C-alpha cells in the first residue's frame, strides 16, 4: 500500500490526474480488503491466541497508521490522521474518525485498529485477551451480552461510577474487544427497560448514579450490586471517584507486573493520563510540571486568603498578560493579541506528559497509588457524608426502580451529555 501511495503522490506531482485517480481507486480497494480482514480478526479474537504477542501488536498497529492516513483521501475530515499521531484524548471515546461513519464494518475496523489514539489498544487487546480474559467469559465476542460483560468488568475493576468514555478507555486498557460509547448508551437504556419489565430477572444491572436531586447523574454508569452510598454523587464524588479509578488501575497494573505480565501500552497510557492530573506525581519524578512562569508552583498556596482582595487573581496572573488590558488600540484583545511576543504568558509545558506517553513504562503505579491516596484523604470524609445523605434520602423517597435508575430517567435517556 505504501508503494501505491508513493505512486499516487508522484502522479499528482506530475499532474497525471487520470493515473492518480485510478491508483487511488486501487489503494482504496486494497484498504477496503485490509479493513475487512481486520474486522474479521476483530470479531474472532479467541482464535488468534496461537501466535505471539508481537505479531498481533504489529498488525493492527500498522492498520492504524494506514487507515489514519487514508482518511484525507476518502473523507472531508482532514484531521483524523493528525490526531491519531498524538497522545490524543480521543483514545477515550470514539474519535472523530469513527462515529462519522455510518457503515458498521468500517467503523468497526477503524474502532478496532484505527481509532485515533487507540494506537495499539485494540492490538494489545487481541493478545491481552488471553492474559486478562480468563476471569471473564470471552465467548460472547461483541454481542450485546459481551458488551454488557465488558462494561461490568471495567466497572468492577474500579468499583465506582464512571462515564462511558472512561469505561471505554478502561476496557481498552484491560485488553478486551473495543467498545464504543454508543453501545454503552444502548445497553444502559436496555437495562432499565429490562428491570422495569421483570425486576431482578438478572443477577445485576447496569444502573445509574444518583445526584443530590435523586435523578440519574448525567452520563455515569454504575452497578446495581454496589451499595447506594457508592452510587450517590455528591459535589466531591467526581474527584474522589477519579482518584479511586487511578488507584484501582495502578493496583491492577502492579498486580499484572507481579504476575510477570506485561500491561498493554493502552493501560500505561491511561494511567499516565490519570496520573498527570494527580498532584505530586510529576514532582516526585524530578520535573516541575512545566509552569515556571507563574509565581508559585502547584500547591504553592494551600491556604486561601479568607477574604483578602483578589486571592488567586493577581497572584496567579501570568506576567505578560498583565498590562495588556490597558494597551490602546480599538480592536485587539487584551491578551494573546499581536503585540505579545516571546515572553507570552502561555505556560509552556516541558513535555513531561509526553515522556510518560512515549515511554514504554509510564508512571510508577506505586507512586500513583501513593499520590492519589494522599489527595483522597483530603476529600474522603466530606464526600462520604454527602453520599450518605443522598443515599438516605433515596432510600426514604424512592421505590426500588427509582433507586436504581433515578427519577425522571426516561426523558434523560434521550439527552446526550454535553
Amino acid at each position, binding site marked *: 500500500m505504501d508503494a501505491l501511495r508513493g505512486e499516487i503522490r508522484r502522479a499528482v506531482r506530475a499532474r497525471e490526474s487520470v493515473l492518480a485517480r485510478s491508483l487511488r481507486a486501487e489503494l482504496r480497494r486494497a484498504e477496503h480488503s485490509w479493513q475487512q480482514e481486520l474486522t474479521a480478526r476483530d470479531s474472532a479474537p479467541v482464535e488468534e491466541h496461537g501466535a505471539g504477542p508481537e505479531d498481533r501488536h504489529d498488525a493492527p498497529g500498522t492498520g492504524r497508521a494506514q487507515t489514519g492516513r487514508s482518511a484525507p483521501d476518502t473523507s472531508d475530515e482532514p*484531521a483524523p490522521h493528525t490526531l491519531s499521531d*498524538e*497522545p*490524543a*484524548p480521543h483514545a*477515550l*471515546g470514539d*474519535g*472523530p474518525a469513527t462515529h462519522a461513519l455510518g457503515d458498521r464494518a468500517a467503523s468497526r475496523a477503524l474502532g478496532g485498529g484505527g481509532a485515533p489514539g487507540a494506537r495499539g489498544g485494540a492490538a494489545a487487546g487481541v493478545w491481552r485477551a488471553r492474559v486478562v480474559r480468563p476471569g471473564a467469559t470471552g465467548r460472547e465476542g461483541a454481542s450485546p451480552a459481551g458488551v454488557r460483560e465488558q462494561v461490568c468488568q471495567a466497572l468492577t475493576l474500579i468499583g465506582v461510577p464512571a462515564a462511558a468514555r*472512561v469505561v471505554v478507555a478502561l476496557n481498552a486498557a484491560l485488553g478486551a474487544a473495543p467498545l464504543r460509547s454508543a453501545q454503552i448508551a444502548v445497553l444502559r437504556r436496555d437495562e432499565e427497560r429490562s428491570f422495569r419489565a421483570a425486576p431482578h430477572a438478572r443477577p445485576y444491572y447496569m444502573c445509574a448514579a444518583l445526584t443530590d436531586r435523586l*435523578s440519574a*447523574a*448525567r452520563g455515569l454508569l454504575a452497578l446495581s450490586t454496589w451499595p447506594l452510598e457508592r452510587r450517590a454523587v455528591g*459535589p*466531591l464524588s*467526581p*474527584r474522589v*471517584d*477519579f482518584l479511586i479509578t487511578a488507584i484501582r488501575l495502578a493496583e491492577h497494573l502492579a498486580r499484572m507486573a507481579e504476575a510477570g505480565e506485561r500491561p498493554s501500552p493502552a493501560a500505561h497510557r491511561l494511567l499516565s493520563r490519570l496520573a498527570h*492530573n494527580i*498532584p505530586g506525581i510529576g514532582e516526585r519524578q524530578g520535573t516541575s*510540571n512545566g*509552569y515556571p512562569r*507563574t509565581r508559585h*508552583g502547584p500547591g504553592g*498556596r494551600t491556604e*486561601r486568603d*479568607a*477574604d483578602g482582595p*483578589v*486571592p*488567586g*487573581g493577581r497572584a*496567579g*496572573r*501570568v506576567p505578560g*498578560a498583565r498590562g495588556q*488590558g490597558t494597551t490602546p488600540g*480599538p*480592536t*485587539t*484583545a*487584551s*491578551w*494573546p*493579541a*499581536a503585540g505579545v511576543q516571546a515572553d*507570552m*504568558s*502561555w*505556560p*509552556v*509545558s516541558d513535555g513531561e*506528559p*509526553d515522556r510518560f506517553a512515549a515511554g514504554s513504562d509510564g508512571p510508577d503505579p506505586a507512586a500513583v497509588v501513593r499520590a492519589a491516596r494522599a489527595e483522597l484523604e*483530603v*476529600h474522603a470524609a466530606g464526600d462520604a457524608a454527602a453520599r450518605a445523605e443522598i443515599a438516605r434520602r433515596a432510600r426514604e423517597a424512592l421505590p426500588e426502580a427509582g433507586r436504581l435508575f433515578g427519577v*425522571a430517567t426516561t426523558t434523560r435517556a434521550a*439527552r446526550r451529555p*454535553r
Partner: protein
Amino acid sequence: MNKDEAKERREVDLDRLDRLRGAVPPRPHDARAIAALAANPGCARRSVLDAAGIDKDATATHLGFPAPFGRSPFAITRGNAFEALVKESGCAELLRLLRELLGLPVAEAAYTDLGDIGGDPSAHLRHAHTRTLLDRAARDGAGAGTLYDHPLLRLEIAGQSAYLEPDVVAFLHGGRFHIVEIKSFAVIDGQAEPDKAAAAARQAAVYVLALKTMLEELGHDPGRVAHDVVLVCPENFANRPAAALVDVRRQLAVLRRQLARMTRVGTLVDALPPGLTFDLAPGDDGVPGRPAAELREAVRAVEARYAPDCLSTCDLCFFCRDEAAGQESTDLLGRQVRDALGGVATVGEALGLADGSREPGEGQEEIARLLRLADRMYAELS
C-alpha cells in the same frame, strides 16, 4: 423625564422595534451574537437590527449575501471532544490547570453540574436552579463548592432576556467567581491567533457580565466576579489543555456601553423613515416572501460602518462590504486607515487629493497635505 414617561417611551420603542422586525418572533441572542456587539460598536445598522431581534443571518441570506459563518462539522466535533477532555472525570484536567495557575488548594475540588437537574427542564427552570445554587455558593463562604458546570445565565438585551448557555465553568475560589472558557483553537509556542483570542475574550466578557448581573440581582457584590477569565486551549497541536488568565475589563466596558446604547436605540430608530420594516415573514414556501430589492433598500436606510473585522463578527458582513465597495468607501481599508483619513469618505477622493487633481474641501487641508506628501514619497520610492 419621570418614570412613567420613561416607561411609556420604552413601550413606544418596543412597539416600533416590533414593527421593524415584522411578523416573525424575535431571534434570541446567543453569546456569540452578544459578544459581536462589542466588536463594532459604532454601527447603527447592527444596533437597530439587534435591538429589534432581527435574524441577521436570514436577512443576509435573503439579500443574497449569506454569512460566512457556521463552523465545519469537524471543527465542532473537535471542539466538543476537547471540551469533553477538559471536563472529564469531574473536570480533572481543569482542576490541575487551576491548581497550577491560581494555586487552587487541593481540598477545593467539588464539582456541581448545574445543568443536571433531572428530566428535560426548560431554560427558565435551569436558570432558576443556577441562581439558587450560585446564590448559596456566594453566601456559604468557606463551605461553598468550587466548580459549577453548565450554568445557565441570562442577560437583558434591549428589553428581551437572552439565555446564555455557556460551555463554561464558573469557578469559585477565595470568595471570587471566575469564568472558565474552553476553546479548541490551538496555542502554539505561546501564541494564539489574535482574532480568535480576541473573540474568546469578548465572549467571555459576556458571561462575566451575565454572572455579575446575576450576583447583583441576588444582592451580592458584583465585584466578586473576577474580570480575569481562565481561558483553556489545546497547546502545541497536542490537544493537551493549557490555561491562561485573560483580562477582559476592556471588552466588558465596550459591551456595557453597547448594551446601554441598545436600550437607547430609540434615538436611532426615531431617525428612520416611519414605514420602515425588515420583515422576513415567510411566504408559503418557507422563504421570506418579500422581494429582496425591497429589503435591500430597507437595510440601506440604516447607516452602516463597515470595517474588515465585520467579516468575523457580523452576519451582514458580505452585504456591507459589497455596499462599501460600491461606494468606494474608505471603510474598506480598515478602521485605522479610515480614522487616519478622517473626513475623506471615498478612495477616489483620497487619490484625487493625493495627486492634486482635487482641491481639498473645508477641513481637508491637513489630510490633503499628508496625502500629497505620501504620494510624493511613494513616487520617489517606486
